[in-house]
């Protein structure tokens, strides 16, 4: 599930829990799922490493050939 979907599901879970019309089992299950999602989203967000690549070629199989990219210094 991509980040967007995970965040969306987390919001959904929180809404459901706030409404509160469910059994104890359900709310515990949802809570668990929510915690898992929140952790995953959080760790994804905390990846601070900016990954910038330069596309040099796309081969026949649709695979991208890239190399690292860094901005040249301005003169």
């Amino acid at each position, binding site marked *: 599930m*991509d*980040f*967007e979907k995970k*965040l969306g599901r*987390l*919001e959904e*879970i*929180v809404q459901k*829990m*706030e409404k*509160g019309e469910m059994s*104890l089992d359900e*709310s*515990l299950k949802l*809570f668990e799922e*929510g*915690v898992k999602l*929140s952790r995953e*989203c*959080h760790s*994804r*967000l*905390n*990846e*601070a*490493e*900016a*990954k*910038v*690549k*330069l*596309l040099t*070629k*796309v081969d026949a199989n*649709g695979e*991208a050939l*890239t190399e690292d*990219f860094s*901005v*040249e210094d*301005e003169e």
Partner: protein
Amino acid sequence: MEAGAPSVLSVEQLNLNIKKLIEGELPLVWVKGEISNFKKHSSGHFYFSLKDSRSQISAVMFRGHNMRLRFLPQDGAEVLVRGRVSVYEPRGNYQIVCDMMEPVGAGALQRSFEQLKIKLKTEGLFESSRKRPLPSFPQHIAVVTSPTGAAIRDILNILKRRAPGIRVTVVPTIVQGEAAAPQIIKALEMTQQLKDVDVIICGRGGGSTEDLWAFNNEQLARAISSSRVPVVSAVGHEIDFTICDFVADLRAPTPSAAAELVARSTTELSERVLALGRLLQISLKKHLQSLQQRLHLSQKRLLDPRKRLQDLRLRNDDLMSRLDFAIDRLLEKRKMKIMNLSSRLVHPKAVLEKNRQQLQILMQRLDRRVQFGLDSKKHKATRLIQLLDSLSPLKVVDRGYALVTHDKKVLKDTDDIKVGASLEIRLAKGELVAVVTEKKER
């Protein structure tokens, strides 16, 4: 002068005729000329003259139209205008009312721009319904631009700041000149083949109209239009509009703006995730609390009967012991009373005996009294009798005394009798009658 009355017009009528003629006959015209006497009125309208080497004409361009100009006309500028000739009959002069103006030279370019714009618009390529929304949380961004230059530098800086974790793939191309458009198209095609690209930024930094011209290319516009991934067009500065801008899913006024539009700040997102986490915890806690409360209430009610029973038992015990105590006390009191009374209770026989005794005593006393009384009376009587007896004159007489009486009155005093009176003298035996012969002095 001809014979016959010529029809005489008023000045106004003449001018109106002229107006009708000119305005009716002359269509929209394009005129090339040089600007002179240019004045921008406070109302915003442009008033100027268009002239060539031999002739000139008054011109006006109203605010509504001149607003759209991307340059300010100046005296001496060679321009191409489109307009209608209009007669102002109060003054009897005419001018060309311009609705379009462009610098000559730029003219041809501008026209082709306009034409392409109309063409693609008619095809519906600018429709807002065609424009796809950008993904809220793109993970992989492709940037089609020059690998050198301010644009890519700005974009990467902003992306790094706002969303450090985002993957960026730079797809290099030249961005101006004749060969630019085909290269940009090829770059776009390559980008399409990348899997998992969420959004494409396509653009370049600021420059002149000519510099930016590649982004007005029809094939490029169509390529952007048919991209399977949303495209953000970011060409030049805020005021620059290219065909690509119209056809893209979103126009960013500058490359920097594109980066900001594309990547929501990670901090924002982080906070959102944290907030959601907190809300999650809070609502679970609330849920648990409310369940606990219900349980507690039920428990309480459940406990109540037993507790009540206990309470009642205690009360019962308490009452019973108090009752016992009270009864004991009461019994004790009664016992005491009974004992008391019974101790005071005398057997009737005893009472009888007592009474009899008493009676006896009383009777004895009575007897004694009576006796005493009688005795005493007897005594008294006896004494009295004795006294009487002793007092009896007869007794006195017995002792030798004589009772002397005079007229039956006892004589005690000599004074009471005269000499010669007769006296009776009673002797113990017998009586005498005597006469007083003398009184003796005592």
